[in-house]
């Protein structure tokens, strides 16, 4: 008896909150731009920086007079906790939120996958800022774009630049079996194919470690015995810091090159300066290295509010997504998804963003993302290696 009442009450409660969730007025109020990211969960670090970056980008636009004749931009944030199911729910929530013109979504390719499908069905433009899996733009989606690069470009950069720079023949590739890490490792291996076929390089080690673990001495010892001349780790910074520390302890001396998630301030803090110095990384330009005037303005505003600039490249891609969406809305005079999608795909041209010129290919990829080889210097700064 009581249980029926309890259950009914529960359902009424949820239904009521369903009513409460989401209607806002339209017309002359602020223009809403959505932002989906891992604000909680394992990648909270990235998600929070991305949200802050979007808000700074919006603030800068508003300071300059807003868009569509003076309307202000407001960021609507949804947390997807870095998990596919929550990502799907967040996307559904966003598409149901009246007045949201487009969404900056998200960080993490396996979360973006179901989320972008939902945005596609709702005909809402969604721009990924931390999603590098190649296949995301191979699905023929009309409303999905990304301002960041792809794993194959990074793999290609590695293959073209690294073996030659270190004069290395024996290459070890290690990943962490995550969607990102494994994807980058596979793309790198594919990119090395021509060199492999020509007999110029050898992949002497190719295996995965388990993220979340701490002791990698066993696989590292195994790797050491293959005598690699350069070692590429495509996973994240937490494991990277442990790997390098332990590698040096057991006597691996070959240069360490991390993928673009492997080296950041956290890495240096955990590994310690002595170990971190001299570690390399293939990366898109870090926020501090971006040459444009927009970058300088953005970084100053961000630093004024939060005390330091973002420590990874992804948040600035999110900010640029806001910038390009705002530009598209302003130029087309519309917040309709289909109109915006067409504009972004075909007509957007010469938009100067924080990370350079923003343009998209027919598939929705960002045009022209450069890569550099970074190195940690003696003062613990991450600088472009000469």
């Amino acid at each position, binding site marked *: *008896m*009581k*249980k*029926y*009442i*309890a*259950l*009914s009450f*529960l*359902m*009424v*409660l*949820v*239904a009521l*909150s*369903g*009513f409460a*969730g*989401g209607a806002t007025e339209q017309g002359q109020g602020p223009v809403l731009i959505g932002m989906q990211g891992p604000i*909680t969960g394992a990648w909270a670090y990235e998600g929070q920086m991305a949200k802050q970056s979007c808000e700074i980008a919006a603030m800068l636009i508003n300071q300059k007079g807003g868009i569509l004749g003076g309307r202000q931009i407001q960021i609507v944030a949804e947390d997807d906790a870095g*998990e*596919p*199911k929550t990502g*799907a*729910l967040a996307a*559904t*929530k966003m*598409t*149901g939120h009246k007045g949201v013109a487009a969404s900056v979504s998200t960080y993490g*390719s*396996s979360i973006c*996958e*179901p989320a972008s*499908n939902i945005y596609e*069905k709702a005909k809402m433009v969604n721009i990924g800022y931390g999603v590098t*899996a190649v*296949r995301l733009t191979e*699905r023929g989606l009309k409303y999905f774009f990304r301002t960041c690069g792809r794993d194959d470009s990074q793999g290609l950069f590695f293959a073209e630049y690294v073996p030659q720079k270190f004069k290395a023949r024996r290459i070890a590739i290690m990943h962490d*079996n*995550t*969607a990102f890490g*494994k*994807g980058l490792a596979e793309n790198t291996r594919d990119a090395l194919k021509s060199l492999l076929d020509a007999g110029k390089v050898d992949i002497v080690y190719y295996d*995965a470690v388990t993220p979340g673990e701490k002791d990698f001495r066993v696989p590292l010892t195994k790797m050491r015995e293959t005598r690699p001349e350069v070692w590429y780790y495509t996973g994240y910074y937490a494991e990277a810091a442990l790997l390098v520390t332990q590698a040096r302890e057991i006597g691996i001396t070959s240069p360490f090159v991390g993928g673009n998630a492997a080296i950041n301030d956290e890495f240096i803090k955990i590994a310690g300066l002595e170990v971190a110095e001299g570690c390399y990384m293939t990366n898109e330009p870090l926020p501090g290295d971006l040459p444009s005037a927009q970058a300088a303005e953005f970084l100053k505003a961000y630093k004024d509010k939060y005390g330091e600039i973002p420590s990874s490249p992804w948040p600035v891609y999110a900010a640029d997504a806001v910038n390009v969406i705002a530009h598209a809305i302003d130029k087309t005079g519309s917040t309709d998804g289909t109109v915006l999608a067409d504009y972004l795909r075909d007509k957007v041209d010469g938009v100067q963003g924080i990370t350079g010129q923003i343009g998209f290919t027919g598939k929705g990829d960002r045009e022209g993302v450069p890569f550099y080889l970074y190195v940690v210097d003696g003062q613990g700064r991450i600088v472009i290696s000469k």
Partner: protein
Amino acid sequence: MSAHLPVSLAAGLRRAGLPLVLALFAVYPFAAGAYFVDVGFFFGIYALLGLSLNIVLGEVGLYDLGHAGFYAIGAYTTAILNTRFGIPVLLLLPVSALAAGLFAYLVTSPVIHLRGDYLCIVTIGMGEIVRLALINNPFGLTGGPNGVYGIAAPSLGFWVLDSSREHYFLVWIVVGLAILALRRLQRSRIGRAWNCIREDEVAAQATGIDVRRHKLLAFVLGAVLAGVAGNLYAGKLMVVSPESFTFWESCLMFCIVLIGGMGSVPGVVIGAAAISLFPEIFRPFATYRMVVFGLAMILMMMFRPGGFWPRRRGGLEARDLLARLWRRHD
């Protein structure tokens, strides 16, 4: 309970109870926004999963902490067969269920004789083996950590079920059918044999019940139902990846059965509600959300250890528990 209300009113409410609940379930997706209908969908999935584990844990009393493995097999079977061979998702529902059941049969046969806790660790191991195998992409089948994507939505001829509401109704119709089937099973010879095994395995054996066969049957049926849930999940999300089938998911299912009430079908549904809805309701607590959730679990076990809706009145009164709280053991 009935002492608080006049008898006739209590009886009237009880009779009105079930239709009222059914009406609420039917009306809900038309009253709430798409996001909340989706939450309702996942509530349904967890109800199915809870019911499937209930067969093993609730009815027979076997500690299964690897149930997510069967769920995964169902989901991936649907995913792989649909994306590679274009077989319609709805048709794959029985196929995935059978695949999960067959898998359960094959892996639990050699270990079914193990005693309680040993079986527990084996089920944990099985669950992890499934998950790790999925990540490592053997024979290029499972797509590795990315999983399998591009799964079609379920369809009946030309009618494609791809709206939140359609998925919601699909899952709850399946839950309804499952509940009917499970109730019948509970009252059948098999159901009673199961409960007998749970209460006292040796006595059950002594009365001539084939304990091994019944235990195996429970695992297989539990896996079959979990496989169904996997199929429905795949059809909704359109992508399956190993992150959705972790040991933590198995723990959540375990909690659903215990918080709802072991062996109790309505209890399990309530347990599923608690597990899937409460974290959403707790959002205002921000970072403390999970702490409150953990606290709720402990308090739940303290005051209603038989679950929200125990099969038989087995829970202790709160008074007695509090009295024991600071008393020394004897």
